[in-house]
Structures are given as structure tokens and as C-alpha cells.
């Protein structure tokens, strides 16, 4: 009996390659061999043990803490004077006016009289751990400047969770950060979203369930680095190279898509054949199915870019000038991806209408300017103007010094905006260093504001976070105390028996 195998015939016309080539006349002696799934023999690639997003909100090791009688700045538009906030199991369980919040028995109670409570600060642009201190050749892991496109590199691979700079950033109230490769390359690699705490391994400090991020850079840096190393040596070459990289990624993605469809059809066909074979009593008349389609080779560089095209990676672009940013938007449009945010972006105010309309966030400083020509037109009102336009601004650091005082930088940007007649509330300025960078990182559903149910990322300040004289007194990340001013900085492994910290205590 001939077995007509009709698997997928209807679909075959839709497929890029013919998939059904059953030859029922030709019995085979070893049918099973042709059914071996070559991909099935390769152990599947496992993902790193980054926890799911739920783990960001649940930490059984975290103590119950209640901070009472404080001014609670929630970064949701609301400030609670004389408020209480309760943290338990790594999450915010309650907050509100003192009278309305019940402190659970057994909670450690902290008197917040005269103090301010804010969400943990988040830096959308840091190189801690990849440009670690001391600044030596040995710790210089920030730029894989061996080719202009190294999308396969990842900041996580180079992050040193014992960088002595980390504890200083924590003492500045920072609870999370996007660690990025440097800007030597057009496409430097993937960023790494970290919880600000020291660790033994990078997996221990990975922000649970955070999305992927890709660092790209335009303008002066890549052309300076590659001018004598094969290019690009002009902006013309840079934007051509961006387009070329994403063209390559599109072709790669197309091949992958074809393969996945082909393989899906082949699997269906195989299943159907097996089903029919099960009914076949004559072993000489087993069905033969063509060999499985061959998977295209994996290219880690293009894997990352393909993931960008699929929308699985948040794209973070270092650009200063309005013209550069607009050109990057054109690259993104042509290539088919969305830019999550521009970093530095000192001229963002000039195109704030365009950026706001496209929901592209702007990460910038309050008053950095002039250190290079593409930074010549930086103004202190940048963040305020973006905010006024309805765009999303953050104050970032890009500096192991600046990350220690993001709140002060926000205060300066707020003061400049107000002096220019732009109405910026304290809450909006606070969002520049909390809720907005949380959005840039793609973790705003779990952190960045003080709300019941959110992650217990909290800072207690000695006074207004916008005063130069205020200090972080208590920093809590994921419900765990990462800095207590009473006990001082936690020295990194490197500093034990080695530095001023312990001796100065």
C-alpha cells in the first residue's frame, strides 16, 4: 500500500523551500536514521541564571523595615509629609501618612523625623565594573575596540563586582544602574543592568529579569578610534557602517526565519509520517522523509543585532548633536528598530519635539559641556526643556564621581530650568534620577517609584535630596541594606588591608 503523505502540502506553497519530497516507491531499510533531528542532538543552549522579573519583587532574606515620620517623595507626583513606608520580603508593602500605615510586629523601625525618603537612584549610564578602579590596563574592560561593531560583547562578561567604585556609588543612594560598554565602537555590545551591591559573580548582581540593552555610539568617538584602524573615519562612514551592520542582521534574520519555518514544517511532516508509519504493517513500505533542514551558522554578533530587530533589546545610543541623533533615528527607521534612549544628548533640546513624539528618552547631565566639540552646545536647561516638551529625561553620570551625586546633578538641572522660567516640580526632578531611568532600563514596572508592591529600592536622606549638604544615610536595594552611614562604606575585596577606608573608619 502506498502511503500518500500530504503533510503540509497546503502550506508548502507558502514556504520558501519545497518541503515535501516523499518518495513512497522507494522503500528504505533504515528509515529511522533519516528522521534523526540534527538540532536535537546538540544540547540546547541554556540561558544564564538571571532570575525572572518576579524575583525582583521577592527577597526572603530581606528584613522587615518601617521608616516613620519622614518626608516621602514617591516620584509618582505625590509627596507625603510625616509618612511611613514599610518594606518586607524585598518589596514595599505599605506607605502613607503615619496614622494610616500599620507597622507590622517585628519590623525594624527607623525614625525618619527630618529625613527624606526617595526611591533608590538609578543611573542609566555607568561604566562601573568595566572601567574599574584603580584605573589600570588590568581593569580596562570597557571598550572592545578591536572592531567597530562588536555586538557580541557584553558588559556582563567584563563587570567586576568588587570594583571599589561600587560602594561609593551606593553611598550616593544608587540602587541600580545600566552598565554599558564604552563608546569607542559604533556598536560596542550589550549593557548589563545591575543591582548596586557588591558580589562574587556577575550573576549575583544582575537585576532580576531585566531586559537586554545594546550600546551604540555615534559622532566623534568611533571615528577618532577607527580613523587609522580601517575606518570609519568620518560620520559618513559611521552611518554607512550602522546601515551595513543592520542590513547584515536583516539578512541573517531572514535566513533564520526561513530556517525556523522550514524546520517547523519538517517537524510536522515527520510527525505525520510517523503517525502513518505506525499504521503500516509492512516494514518494507516505511515512509522516508527528507533530511532535516540545516540550521544556518550562528553568529553571535548578528544574533544580538537580530534580537534588536525582533524588538527584544532596548537600544541605547551615545550621541551628542541634534544632527547625529536625527541621523540615528533615520538608521533605526530604515533598519526597523526603535531607539529607547539617547545618552549624553547635549543638543537634545534642539530636537525635543522629534524625540518626545517618538518616545525616545534623553539621558544627560546638568552642566557638562565643552570637553569636546560635539559637546560645545550643552546647556543647563536641557533636561528641563525635554520635560516641558513632554519627553522623558534622565540625569545620568557616565562617571564614577558623578554617580555618587546624581541627586545633586538633578538639583542643578532643576534650578537652571526654573531660572529659565520652566516649571519643574521637585517630583519631576526626582523622576530624572529614579522613574525615568527605570523606564530607560525597562524595569519601571518593578522599581523607580515608591508604591506598594514595588521593589524595596529606597534611600533615606539626611535632608532634601536636592541640597548639597544632604547625605544618604541608609540605602536599601531589593529590601537589603546596602549602605548605612553609621557603619560607613563597605570596603571591596581589593581594599581589605589595603586602603584608607578601614584605617579612616
Amino acid at each position, binding site marked *: 500500500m502506498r502511503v500518500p503523505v500530504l503533510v503540509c502540502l497546503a502550506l508548502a506553497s507558502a514556504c520558501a523551500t519545497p518541503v515535501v519530497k516523499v518518495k513512497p516507491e522507494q522503500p528504505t531499510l533504515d528509515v529511522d536514521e533519516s528522521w534523526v533531528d540534527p538540532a536535537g542532538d546538540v544540547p540546547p543552549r541554556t540561558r544564564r541564571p538571571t532570575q525572572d522579573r518576579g524575583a525582583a519583587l521577592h527577597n526572603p532574606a530581606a528584613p522587615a523595615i518601617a521608616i516613620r515620620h519622614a518626608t516621602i517623595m514617591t516620584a509618582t507626583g505625590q509627596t507625603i509629609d510625616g509618612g511611613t513606608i514599610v518594606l518586607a520580603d524585598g518589596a514595599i508593602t505599605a506607605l502613607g501618612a503615619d496614622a494610616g500605615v500599620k507597622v507590622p510586629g517585628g519590623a525594624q523601625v527607623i525614625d525618619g523625623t527630618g529625613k527624606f525618603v526617595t526611591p533608590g537612584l538609578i543611573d542609566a549610564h555607568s561604566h562601573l565594573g568595566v572601567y574599574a*578602579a*584603580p584605573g589600570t590596563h588590568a581593569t580596562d574592560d570597557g571598550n572592545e575596540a578591536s572592531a567597530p561593531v562588536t555586538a557580541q560583547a557584553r558588559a556582563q562578561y567584563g563587570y567586576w563586582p568588587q570594583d*571599589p567604585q561600587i560602594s*561609593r556609588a551606593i553611598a550616593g543612594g544608587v540602587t541600580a544602574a545600566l552598565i554599558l560598554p564604552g563608546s569607542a565602537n559604533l556598536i560596542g555590545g550589550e549593557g548589563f543592568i545591575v543591582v548596586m551591591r557588591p558580589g562574587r559573580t556577575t550573576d549575583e548582581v544582575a537585576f532580576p529579569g531585566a531586559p537586554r540593552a545594546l550600546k551604540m555610539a555615534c559622532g566623534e568617538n568611533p571615528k577618532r578610534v577607527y580613523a587609522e584602524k580601517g575606518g570609519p573615519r568620518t560620520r559618513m562612514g559611521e552611518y554607512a557602517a550602522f546601515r551595513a551592520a543592520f542590513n547584515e542582521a536583516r539578512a541573517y534574520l531572514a535566513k533564520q526565519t526561513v530556517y525556523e519555518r522550514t524546520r517547523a514544517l519538517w517537524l510536522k511532516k515527520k510527525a505525520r509520517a510517523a503517525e502513518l508509519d505506525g499504521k503500516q504493517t509492512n516494514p518494507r513500505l516505511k515512509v522516508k522523509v527528507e533530511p532535516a533542514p540545516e540550521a544556518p551558522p550562528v553568529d553571535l554578533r548578528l544574533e544580538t543585532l537580530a534580537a534588536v530587530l525582533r524588538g527584544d533589546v532596548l537600544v541605547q545610543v551615545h550621541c551628542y548633536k541634534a544632527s547625529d541623533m536625527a541621523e540615528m533615528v533615520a538608521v533605526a527607521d530604515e533598519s526597523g528598530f526603535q531607539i529607547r534612549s539617547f545618552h549624553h544628548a547635549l543638543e537634545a533640546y534642539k530636537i525635543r519635539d522629534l524625540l518626545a513624539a517618538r518616545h525616545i528618552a534623553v539621558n544627560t547631565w546638568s*552642566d*557638562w559641556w565643552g570637553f569636546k566639540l560635539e559637546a*560645545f552646545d550643552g546647556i*543647563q536647561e536641557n533636561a528641563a526643556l525635554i520635560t516641558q516638551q513632554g519627553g522623558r529625561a534622565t540625569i545620568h553620570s557616565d562617571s564614577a564621581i558623578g554617580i555618587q551625586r546624581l541627586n*545633586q546633578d538633578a538639583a542643578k538641572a532643576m534650578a537652571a530650568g526654573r531660572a529659565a522660567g520652566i516649571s519643574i516640580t521637585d517630583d519631576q526632578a526626582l523622576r530624572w534620577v529614579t522613574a525615568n531611568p527605570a523606564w530607560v532600563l525597562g524595569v519601571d514596572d518593578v522599581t523607580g517609584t515608591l508604591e506598594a508592591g514595588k521593589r524595596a529600592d529606597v534611600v533615606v536622606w539626611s535632608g532634601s535630596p536636592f541640597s548639597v549638604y544632604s547625605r544618604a544615610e541608609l540605602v536599601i536595594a531589593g529590601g537589603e541594606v546596602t549602605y548605612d552611614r553609621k557603619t560607613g562604606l563597605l570596603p571591596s575585596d581589593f581594599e581589605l588591608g589595603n586602603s584608607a577606608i578601614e584605617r579612616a573608619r
Partner: protein
Amino acid sequence: MTRTFTLTRLAAVGVLACAAPVAADTIAVTGATIYQRSDHKLEGATLVIRDGKIAEVGAGVAVPAGATRIDGTGKTVTAGLIEASTQLGLIEVDLEESGNDGRFAVLPTEIHAAYRAVDAYSGRSVAIPIARAGGVTSAITGPSGGLVAGQAAWVSLGEGAGPIAPIAPLRAPVAMNMSLGRDAMAIGSRGHTVERLRELFDDVDNYRRNRAGFERNASRRLIAQRLDLEALLPVLDGRELVAIRASAEVDIRAALAIAAERRLRIAIVGGTEAWRVAAELAAARVPVLLDPTDNLPGDLGAVNVRDDTAAVLARAGVVVGISTLGSTSAARTIRQLAGIAVAQGLPWQKGLAAITEVPAQIYGGAAERGTLERGKIADVVVWSGDPLELSSRAETVIIGGAVQSLATHQSRLLDRYKVLHR
């Protein structure tokens, strides 16, 4: 005194003559909180400026007839801020060679004692109005890099008299900029920089003894050029301050040792680990110019960092000045830096002094600037509030008795882009 030195002095005098402020109106700032000195606060006081100088300060001072009145109610008035170690007017854009002067290779072979910042200084720098709008009224600007970078100048940041007149330097030189350790050599031996400096000073001695022989080509080989040797004479005579860039404890100790050997007048610039040498610095009466945010173990030679270096030094009796230590674009941030030092335990008065009186004292201009005492040059800032606080702004800036425009490249950009036109 050598001929060259005389010429230098003459040039400086000429420059000073050019720097005379525009004949300004009489100005009275009334009803203000006035810090006549950092440690002397007057409430509800009036400040009268006449002929470019501080004429009167006090609670009961009458406003002269015809004076331009500035209502200081609710405002705080201080002496103009002094950025004590910068490259304003020398480096326009850090990463651009074409706008870059006075930055030498970080090598111990680099000796540029005859380099004078005044020869390269551009009073037209776009960074100057920006510093000025931030309340910085004068600055000590000078070269960097190498063993001896050259002569710094104290420059007024006031607007020029005419539309194109350069803003004339105040004094040149006020200091010889030198470096030790990592600041003198990117790679190589710390001890070698010290040895080089000793050899250089010996060569200056030799040159001084044997100038006639030197002119006849009858001299042993010296490691510096003639004008560099000349320029070091006033340094070795103890007449010119040496601003020594040194971060590591060992370099600071070397600087103190050489200063003692040669009886130099020195200031330490940098001083990351200066707190480890606080007692010695105090005993030798050596001031330290520092950036209080410098709290990272930046290199293996200077890991003994702490947050409160300024406070520790001040407690030990060391005179502390605060500066960006070389930035041009960030000069306006010195008041925030002072505030940060205060947050780390430096008394507020010393924080204000660190960016006003102390630089004036260190660079030998305390008789003219740094406080609002009668007879001093009227470099004055009216602040909206506490000058060290982030929410405060410089509302009126007066330099040499003249009210300054606060327009800058940045304010003009804001004007252009405040409303988007397309």
C-alpha cells in the same frame, strides 16, 4: 635681578595697567546678608562700590547720592569666587588640539619654566563668560604636564573695556606649575622625577654661578634651556610660589623634602593622599588645593583616598583651597565642590574661604581680592541664596567695580531654542 626677570616684571606691570577696570558707577548693594570675610557675616548690610573698589561695608552705611542701587534684600553677597587652578583661556576644547595650549606631555623630560600662560591666554574664550555667570570673577590659569609646566597667571574674568579688547591678565607669573610622580610621568619611575627635579635645581645654581661661562659656551651640559633656567631663579630665591601637582603621599613627602632643602614656597595641588601628611603640611605651612570629589583609588600609587580630605586637613591646621584642578568648562562648579566638602565635615566658613580668600592668600593677592574689605578690588557676587547651595544662582556679578553681563554662549542658545521654530 636678572635682565629677563626685569622684563617679565615690566610686562606684568604693563599688563596690570591695561587691566584697570572701566570707570564704573558708584554701586550700592543694600539690605543684604554680606560675607565681608568668610567668617564675618553682616545682616541687613550695605556694600558701596566706588572707583572699582570696595568703599564701604556695613549695616549702617548710607547709600551715596546717584549710586546705582541693587536691592540685596534676601540675597547673599560674597567676594567673587576665585578658581585656583584652571586652564581657562588656555584650553578651549579639551579634545581639540587647535584650541589647546599649555598642556605638555606627561614626561619628566618636559621642562617649560619659561612658558608663560599670559603669552597664550585668550580672554575671548567662550568658557570665560560661562565661568563668570557662575560667580567666578578671577582665576589662576596655567600650564600642565611634565616636570615643570611653566608660569601660571592670575586673570580677571571681567568683560573687556571695548568690544574686542582682550581681558587682561592680572598678574604674571603668580606661580610656577610643577609636577611630581604620576603627574609628571605617565610611565616610569617616581623616584626619577624627584631626581630630575634635584638635578634641574642644581643646574639652575650652576647657571647662576657661571652665567658668564654659559654665555661663552663654557659650561657643563645643563638639562634645561637658558630661559627656563632664568625663569627658575625667582623660584629658588623663594620669591615665586611653586604649585606642585602631587597626589600620592610619597610625592607629597618628596615635595615637602625638596621645599625644605631649597627653601621653596610651595602649595600642593591635587593632594589625594594629603590627609596622610596633614601634620607635616601644617607644620611646613604648605597649603593644599584639592577637589573634594577626588575619593576614588584612581591608581595603584594613590589608593589611600577618603571623602573628607578637606575636613581632615583643615582640622590639622592646613590651609585648604578648593578647585576643579584644571577644568575649563567646569569652573562654575567650584561652589558645589565647596558645598560637598562642607557636607563632608569642612566648616561652612572654610568652604567659602576655600574658593575666595584662600586662593587669594596662596597666590599673594590677599591685599586686593578674596574678601569684601574696604579698599579691595570690587569683585562681588550677589547670590539668590547660600552661594554653596545648588538652588542658588549668581544674580549680579561685579568685577573691578563693573556690573557684568551674564550672557553666554549657553544663554544665547537657550534664547534661540526656548521656542522651537520650524
